[in-house]
């Protein structure tokens, strides 16, 4: 019993330490700029990342919102930051109107151990924040993709997890092959860095209506992957449009059938 009580005390100390440590986002310019004076709610938004990432070039990340909103309030945007990276921006997601629960997954690049931050902004201009510490044992910046990857977008993929049904959330997975050159990676041959080449955005429309979009930054892994939810009210077609920083566009479509 004494051992258990001691353990409890240590856990309490740990939890207190964590609560204090979580305020570190207040010292991050990118996060404070995104908050723009809003005081974020600390409960409701959850960020899932492994405690230890053995390959920082591609770390699974999930962000979920299960908190309480006011009547009529919905989540408009979710933004991800990796403040320990040379550039902190990872991705911004814009959600369709009426989104009250969020379940987004992606793969991010972490150059070193750090605290990753997620923000959600609602239609009533409220902010929610979640943070998560990740230890990175191999830096994401130094792992090349092996063979020289093509600098253009290729092989867009899309799939639904499970069967679509009317009015029910449907998980969409999508990925496109692209090296997402950060502009920070040394070129093995010369003294310069490999030129930046990023996929800039993904836009999802369901029967012509925009339901989800994403803006990508250097913190999103090569071969950008996004998993998000839609709520189809009728059968039709989901159209995904990827655009890179040069304005090139790749489209892919998936029928939605009940």
């Amino acid at each position, binding site marked *: 019993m004494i*051992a258990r009580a001691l353990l409890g005390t240590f856990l309490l100390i740990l939890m207190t330490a964590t609560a204090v440590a979580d305020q570190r986002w207040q010292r991050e310019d990118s996060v404070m700029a995104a908050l723009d004076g809003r005081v974020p709610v600390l409960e409701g938004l959850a960020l899932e990342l492994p*405690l*230890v990432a053995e*390959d920082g070039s591609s770390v699974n990340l999930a962000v979920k919102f299960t908190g309480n909103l006011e009547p009529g309030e919905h989540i408009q945007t979710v933004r991800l930051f990796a403040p320990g990276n040379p550039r902190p921006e990872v991705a911004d997601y814009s959600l369709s109107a009426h989104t009250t629960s969020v379940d987004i997954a992606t793969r991010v690049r972490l150059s070193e151990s750090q605290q990753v931050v997620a923000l959600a902004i609602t239609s009533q201009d409220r902010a929610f924040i979640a943070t998560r510490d990740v230890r990175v*044992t191999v830096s994401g910046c130094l792992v090349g*993709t092996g063979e020289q990857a093509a600098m253009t977008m290729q092989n867009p993929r*899309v799939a639904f997890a499970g069967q679509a049904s009317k009015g029910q959330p449907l998980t969409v997975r999508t990925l496109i*092959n692209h090296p997402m050159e950060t502009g920070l990676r040394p070129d093995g041959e010369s003294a310069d860095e490999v030129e930046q080449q990023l996929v800039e955005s993904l836009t999802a429309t369901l029967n012509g209506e925009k339901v989800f979009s994403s803006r990508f930054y250097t913190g999103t892994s*090569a*071969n950008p992957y996004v998993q998000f939810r839609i709520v189809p009210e009728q059968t039709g077609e989901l159209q995904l449009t990827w655009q890179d920083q040069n304005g090139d566009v790749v489209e892919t479509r998936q029928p939605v059938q009940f």
Partner: protein
Amino acid sequence: MTNKSIKNQGLTSSRRDLLKLMGAASALPLLGACSSLGGSKELSARVVVVGGGFGGATAAKYLKRSAPQLDVTLIEPNKVFYTCPFSNLVLAGMRSMDSISHNYDELRALGVRVIHTTAQDVDPVSRTVSLGDGGSVRYEKLLLSPGIDIRWNAIEGYDQAAAEHAPHAWKAGDQTRLLRRQIEAMDDGGVFVLTAPANPFRCPPGPYERASLVAHYLSQHKPRSKVLILDAKDNFSKQGLFMQGWNEVHGDRIEWVGLSGDGKVTRVDAQKREVETEFGTIHKASVLNVVPPQKAGFIADRAGVTNESGWVPVDPMTFESTQVNDIYVVGDATLAAPMPKSGFAANAQGKVAAAAIIASLEGQRPLEPSWANTCYSLINPEYGISVAAVYKIQEGLISETSGGVSATDASATVRKLEAEYAVGWYNAISQDTWGTRR
């Protein structure tokens, strides 16, 4: 911050300097230093070790050798232990199961009490391990080397029944025999499909060595057959060397599909030997080898030492659990990255934990450890590659301080030598761990 690191802060700087001067450069000299520090105090404490693999057998041996008065008990269900290292050679028909088998005769001769049963539960309050044979053993210090358990159903459809049709063979023994039989029975022209998990998992280069050696077997016996690797990641251990070796030796016999090429398997139909990937591609296999997601062996859960990741956080100085006092955990079950989940790492960690247990029983501070690890892999019987590293504690965390992989574009002579070194490594570590001499 853990209770352990609070303790370590109590170390005075002069004491720390003294320890540095004593030079704990590796685990082996460290043991000698510990015994001399202990001033030959009579130690009669009971230490229980659970698991007789690389970590546990090594720890039991070094505990008893360094402090013969200790009452050391090893709990291990199997009378014969088969190693995962070199089990890929068995799959390729290059070795017998007997050649990767080890027993506990040396430990018994040293005076370790070996009980062949399972450890079923741990009560850290009464310091008791309850056993599968109905008995129980008490401990002052407990060392767990539980290895891995499979996360059944982490991939839809992959459960214990499925493993009888689509073996994982990621614990050596019957699963190795089953997969070997399936490979031998495969039709010429068939496809051997291996699915590899995301990090972390036991033996990071293992799936790729397996693909290499199965391809080698197929080239000799079923030349129209192929190997397909479906991978849940884009980067893997020794990737450049494996890919170069595959090009040089196996040509297009081995195909690798990474995460961004839709290589992540999300559903298995073991009866049909069929898998489905994240984006809905169906692959049919003649032989289906699923290397599934893993977690710490179940006794770690029972002891309360695992965290939400399913693995065991430890104090790097001692490999004592950060969650439960007097329980030390070594090997694949631990969160010791960047050290890999390898037999060599488990062996090194077993020595560090043994020394730390003795130091603690003697009322001494543990010496600062360092560890080394080498992983050899075979592309074929005459083509070896390796990765090696030295690890130390930096800012309270295990960090790689030096290391590297075999040279790219090395000569055939170098590759052949590395294949010989691999055998030398296996023989040496088998002798160190179980006393096996062949």
